[in-house]
């Protein structure tokens, strides 16, 4: 092998030490994207996949046809939950750093995704989340203490100690169980939506996957089935620019936006400013209406940035510039909404501070409560015998026997 390789190797614009460079992002001014009717033909809405739907402009003014015209209450709801998500993540991160939970993942910088989409969907709609959708669980009524108990694998853990922290689910909140295997939830959402259609119900499904995970088979399976049966589903790609250490080009984002991935199957795509709560809300409402009226699936690419490390096991300074987030042209979703509200007159720095303090208290109180149900070092403890439950609906003989054996050994043979 003396000749020069002709293989194309995707290259991020900036690595540690380089100046952040987001020139590859194809941005568009706020308010510039047309808003077609939800009954428009697929062909006529293809343009949405290459543009960028933005409502909040750089001066924090809401603009254009996609502006959902939120009233002050709606704005405050959005802000509150995003902030709660942020505050919760910060606290849990700390807690992991103190060795009091084994693992954690933040949604820092991506809070608008879960909150805006949570607001846009109806309670009867079913969500199939990825591991950065904790905001969705909160918004859909899962108590902070329950999320913390999951992370503690304690006696109140909804997963009964069976899963790594952050692998939440909520039956009553209609949020599916998070899987450690990337992308597997995508076809589940499509199947759920197909079932809804088969039953003649008007509930829809929504699901989320990262930019990197679009390379998995399940992404393709989900798009294919969604297109073939025109399933009432919203397929979200959260393009936060990174997949652990690889940038979005490694997942095939160099040539066309992820929003275009379904076009070849006739699935319309919308590219949206993922850090703009109003824009995300608007496109999601639009996609939901399409789905609910039997017009089939919509693919939404949410352009955002993974503000923090991939997880508590990761050190991003090894592979990307330290200050990259600060240079991200779509900013921070919380800061942007806050400034919008301030400029509108319905909010102030002081109110914001108060709210932050309040939420921190709430989180702190929840943590205190959660610990009463057990920590990693102190009881109460889950009964290890429960390890043998729920493998099947009813415990078969071999598990019963093994359970006895385990208890015997644990009690010293």
């Amino acid at each position: 092998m003396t000749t020069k390789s002709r293989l194309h190797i995707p290259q991020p614009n900036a690595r540690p030490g380089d100046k952040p460079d987001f020139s590859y992002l194809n941005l568009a001014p706020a308010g510039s994207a047309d808003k077609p009717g939800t009954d428009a033909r697929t062909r006529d809405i293809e343009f949405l996949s290459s543009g960028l739907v933005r409502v909040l402009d750089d001066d924090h003014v809401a603009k254009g046809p996609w502006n959902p015209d939120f009233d002050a209450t709606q704005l405050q709801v959005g802000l509150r939950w995003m902030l709660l998500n942020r505050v919760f993540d910060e606290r849990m991160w700390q807690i992991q750093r103190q060795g009091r939970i084994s693992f954690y993942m933040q949604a820092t910088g991506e809070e608008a995704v879960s909150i805006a989409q949570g607001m846009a969907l109806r309670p009867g709609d079913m969500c199939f989340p990825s591991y950065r959708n904790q905001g969705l669980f909160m918004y859909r009524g899962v108590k902070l203490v329950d999320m913390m108990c999951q992370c503690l694998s304690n006696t109140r853990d909804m997963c009964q100690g069976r899963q790594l922290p952050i692998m939440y689910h909520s039956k009553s909140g209609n949020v599916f169980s998070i899987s450690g295997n990337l992308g597997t939830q995508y076809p589940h959402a499509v199947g759920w939506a197909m079932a809804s259609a088969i039953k003649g119900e008007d509930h829809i499904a929504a699901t989320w996957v990262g930019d990197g995970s679009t390379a998995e088979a399940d992404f393709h399976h989900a798009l294919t089935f969604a297109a073939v049966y025109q399933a009432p589903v919203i397929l979200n790609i959260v393009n936060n620019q990174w997949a652990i250490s690889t940038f979005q080009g490694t997942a095939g984002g160099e040539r066309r936006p992820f929003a275009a991935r379904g076009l070849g199957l006739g699935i319309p795509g919308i590219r949206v400013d993922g850090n703009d709560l109003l824009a995300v809300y608007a496109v999601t409402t639009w996609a939901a209406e399409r789905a609910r009226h039997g017009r089939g699936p919509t693919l939404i690419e949410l352009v955002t940035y993974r503000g923090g490390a991939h997880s508590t096991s990761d050190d991003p300074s090894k592979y990307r510039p330290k200050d990259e987030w600060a240079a991200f042209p779509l900013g921070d979703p919380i800061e942007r909404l806050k400034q919008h509200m301030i400029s509108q007159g319905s909010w102030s720095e002081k109110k914001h501070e108060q709210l932050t303090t309040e939420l921190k208290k709430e989180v702190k109180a929840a943590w205190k409560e959660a610990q009463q149900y057990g920590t990693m070092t102190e009881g109460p403890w889950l009964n290890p015998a429960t390890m043998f439950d729920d493998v099947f609906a009813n415990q078969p003989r071999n598990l019963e026997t093994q359970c006895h054996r385990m208890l015997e050994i644990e009690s010293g043979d």
Partner: protein
Amino acid sequence: MARMNMIEAIRSAHEVMMEKDPTVVVLGQDVGYFGGVFRCTDGLQRKFGEHRVIDAPISEGGIIGTAIGMGVNGLRPVAEIQFADYIYPGFDQIVSELARLRYRSGGDFFSPVTIRTPCGGGIHGGQTHSQSPEAIFTHVSGIKTVMPSNPYDAKGLLISAIESDDPVVFFEPKRIYNGPFDGDPEKPAISWNTHPKGEVPEGYYTVPLGQAVITRPGNDITIITYGTLVHIAIAAAAATGVDCEIIDVRTMAPLDVVTLTDSVKKTGRCLIAHEATQFGGYGAELTATIQKECFYDLEAPIGRVAGWDTPYPHAFEWQYFPGLKRMSAGINNVMEQE
């Protein structure tokens, strides 16, 4: 009572369940308009409509993945994988999702999917139409694994599988779809017409999951097997003149240990037989369990008769397939020792 072959019995199980329970839906490649390449779903779409009997894209992963989602939304999907050799693209969804959902969600979510798939050799199908991959499913906690050996059991077990709230991988030994097979491909095909297990009730009945059955009582040696090889074992018992007790496992996981060990304790000898490759096959688990439970009763090492540790070869089907000669040699081998 009607006379049915295995295909008709399987079709009947679908029909009975689809009539009884409006949440039962069927999906798979060619299962709808055409009725399945083996005809196991023939007529169902005409009867229950295209919204309950669904022709799916050629995507085993997609079929299983969407079936899981349907199950979560209150349906009871029966998914056909056209050949067991093609189940692997859906393996991740089976192992990481279907099998684990109830457990990982603390019992809050589950998806009662039944996956049906024709397996096994003896049909000149070559390596991609002859595999018996049951062992790898039995190793996955949270999945029930089933293989019937006759029409009566096929229908009863399939109804149990569809009704079960647990995921079931249901293997159908395609060699005996149309009739039992004694291992001699030269003989004219026999049909299920005169076989007692070809008598199948038209309506609803179940054969419970998790129960093995003694197909032929005997005293000298226990043969533990399932699927097509049950019939080869019967023929080999006749051919060797050894008084074999033949056990049809029927449900590979969870396993009915007691029926097996009671028999081996009685006979003191044991032969285990399956079509799949021997190394790491399901016979290994059976052997390990039995040697543990029956150690002091065993008069000879437990024998295994299985596919050789090679891919399934087209030209050497009858040297590869554990037929009458191999089964008989296996019996004699276990009988001769000590």
